[in-house]
């Protein structure tokens, strides 16, 4: 009986090993025949190409390894922005789909059905080229909020110039620690005598108040450098100073957000609808306010339904960000699996590194979300 179970598995394993061994041998023979050598030494070589947008210091005299890092950070940046914004939008739309208001309900439904049924690449092209057509040239741009400009060459906004940034940072950390302890105290107090403190207001005032106090007492200083119009040639202008966010990043983040939010909205709707109606009535009957019902009864249960499929959407969004290559946003695929691969010709090495990188990012997101999911699971006592 036992042998009957082991034998097929052993044969399958052998088969898999043989297949992969054959692939490896074949690749090695082919590479040898073509005089291609395998190795990662190229990562130390000078990249000698420039990248449009970088979060760390980079120019062409840096190494391919550094270019990889630039691409990786750009990927993480757009994934981070996309995840935050699509979560917010997804929750709003998901709740709106259950609204008793007919207009809100139907608008939300239309949005979901429209955006989730159009291929993402088309949406990215649409937002990018539509934006390029619609946005003004730098010299025609209007002032927004008294300080920023939205132009075809990007969004220009004042850049913060810090003095004693480290002190600001330490204050911020202190504020978080303080909030943590106050929260713990409030919880204990509630358990002891049942009184509730307005924790949200207290936390917010600590978060804003502490840095403000340090600022007023001269601990650190913050000023802004404003973008200024600069003439390049007779009819050609750009902005100097401030922070410039390229339209490629804006279009990509927008497209990813609008697309992924539709799926998250459906998850949220499913989560809320998955809670029995009796729960709400029961909570109301013991005197909880509608806000408390949502926060203490509905959401904790709905999250258990919402989190696992939403993790999938976060992973999808991160992987979909590789479509950036189509509109020149310098993400990992464009910079590393694109330019660097072409300039070095190290296709196998670079594709391997890129695959391993996406795998690591995805596993990290999964791990984090699984940990969160575990935390909010029903704890049987």
């Amino acid at each position, binding site marked *: 009986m036992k042998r009957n179970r082991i034998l097929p598995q052993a044969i399958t394993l052998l088969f898999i090993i043989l297949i992969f061994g054959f692939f490896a041998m074949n690749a090695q023979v082919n590479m040898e025949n073509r005089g291609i050598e395998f190795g990662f030494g190229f990562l130390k070589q000078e990249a000698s190409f420039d990248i449009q947008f970088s979060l760390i210091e980079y120019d062409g005299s840096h190494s391919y390894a550094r270019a990889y890092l630039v691409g990786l950070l750009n990927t993480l940046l757009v994934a981070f922005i996309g995840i935050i914004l699509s979560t917010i939008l997804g929750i709003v739309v998901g709740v709106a789909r259950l609204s008793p208001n007919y207009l809100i309900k139907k608008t939300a439904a239309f949005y979901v059905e429209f955006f989730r049924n159009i291929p993402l690449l088309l949406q990215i092209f649409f937002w990018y080229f539509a934006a390029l057509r619609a946005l003004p040239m730098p010299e025609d741009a209007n002032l927004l909020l008294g300080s920023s400009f939205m132009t075809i060459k990007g969004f220009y906004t004042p850049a913060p110039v810090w003095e004693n940034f480290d002190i600001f940072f330490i204050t911020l950390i202190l504020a978080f620690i303080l909030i943590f302890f106050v929260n713990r105290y409030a919880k204990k107090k509630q358990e002891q005598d049942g009184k509730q403190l307005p924790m949200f207001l207290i936390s917010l005032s600590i978060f804003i108040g502490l840095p403000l106090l340090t600022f007023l007492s001269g601990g650190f200083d913050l000023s802004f450098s404003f973008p200024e119009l600069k003439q390049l040639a007779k009819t*050609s202008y750009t902005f100097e100073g401030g922070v410039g966010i390229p339209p490629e990043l804006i279009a990509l983040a927008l497209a990813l957000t609008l697309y992924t939010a539709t799926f998250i909205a459906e998850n949220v709707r499913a989560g809320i609808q998955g809670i029995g109606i009796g729960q709400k009535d029961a909570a109301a009957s013991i005197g909880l306010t509608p806000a408390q019902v949502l926060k203490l009864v509905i959401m904790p249960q709905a999250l258990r339904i919402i989190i696992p499929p939403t993790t999938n959407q976060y992973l999808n969004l991160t992987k979909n960000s590789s479509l950036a290559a189509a509109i020149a946003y310098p993400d990992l695929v464009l910079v590393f699996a*694109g330019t660097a691969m072409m300039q070095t010709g190290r296709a196998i090495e670079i594709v391997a590194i890129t695959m391993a990188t996406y795998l690591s990012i995805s596993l990290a997101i999964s791990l984090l979300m699984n940990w969160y999911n575990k935390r909010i699971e029903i704890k049987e006592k």
Partner: protein
Amino acid sequence: MTKMFKHLFSLLAVFALLFSLGTEAMAAKKSKTLKNTQKKGFVRCGVSQGLPGFSNADASGNWAGIDVDVCRAVAAAVLGDAGLVKFTPLSAKERFTALTSGEIDILSRNTTWTLSRDADIGLTFVGVNFYDGQGFMVRKDSGINSVNDFKDGISACTNIGTTTELNMRDFFTSRAISYEPVAFEKADEVVAAYDAGRCDTYTTDKSGLAAQRTKMKDPSAHIVLPETISKEPLGPVVRQGDSVWEDLVRWSLNVMIEAEEYGITSSNADSMKTSDNPQIKRLVGSEGELGAAFGLDNEWSLRIIKQVGNYGESYKRNIADTGILPDRGPNELWTKGGILYVPPAR
């Protein structure tokens, strides 16, 4: 890197090399690529995704251009019919992998011959079918008349994975001008973004600029600056390791250029068989045994000239008459003041 890791990563090679199984086992006396091509009945040729004059498909899917003609010449020589070519449009990024993995057998896609490409990544360049150089295009009303008018903060649209990206950096760095490179994967998107006003300048090979300008909303609103910032010898590429095939592609191109030099055209090729000049007779196959070196019959070169034409005819048909670059510039024969000079076919 340990041996184990090496093997682990070799596994991933399957994505690139799986389908190239044994296309070139040992250096057989006869070319495996040639044999496979004859067996399949068509030449597998990698071209651009649409560059007028070089490789461009019309509405009914017929490819034309001087890069296309190189593949047609090989098809005429090997298979007897210049029409027996299967074209695979490739982006700049895909092109070398497609060739090394054996998806195509000739890469004729306005590709610049450089040392690292030739020596480092399993490719062999067989010649030059167009001498080009990188230039800049700007809007006519911008007031920029020369690269000396470029200022800090200029944004430049281009393609990724090309020598253009590297030259651009060399150029701006050596002049200490800070610039914003906006690099797209496909040429059509570069043109669309530049045309919409995303960039102040569009940089690529000058022939490419001239060709892409014809695709813009208002071609006359753009000018190509006079300066050339690099050498870009463009030519066909084959896989390293099949020297017979390599020679065959090289000499198919050379025959076209030499035919022009000796005044042999598609219309007079047959009558040249009885010429008094032995070199002309060798080119049209009525003297010598030139085809035997490749295992082909003696009329291989005659078929190239008759079906595809000589280099001058190809240039006129694809580049001059289409208004892309009427002036041949350096791509004129060495006897007429250009630099086209090929070794003798004898």
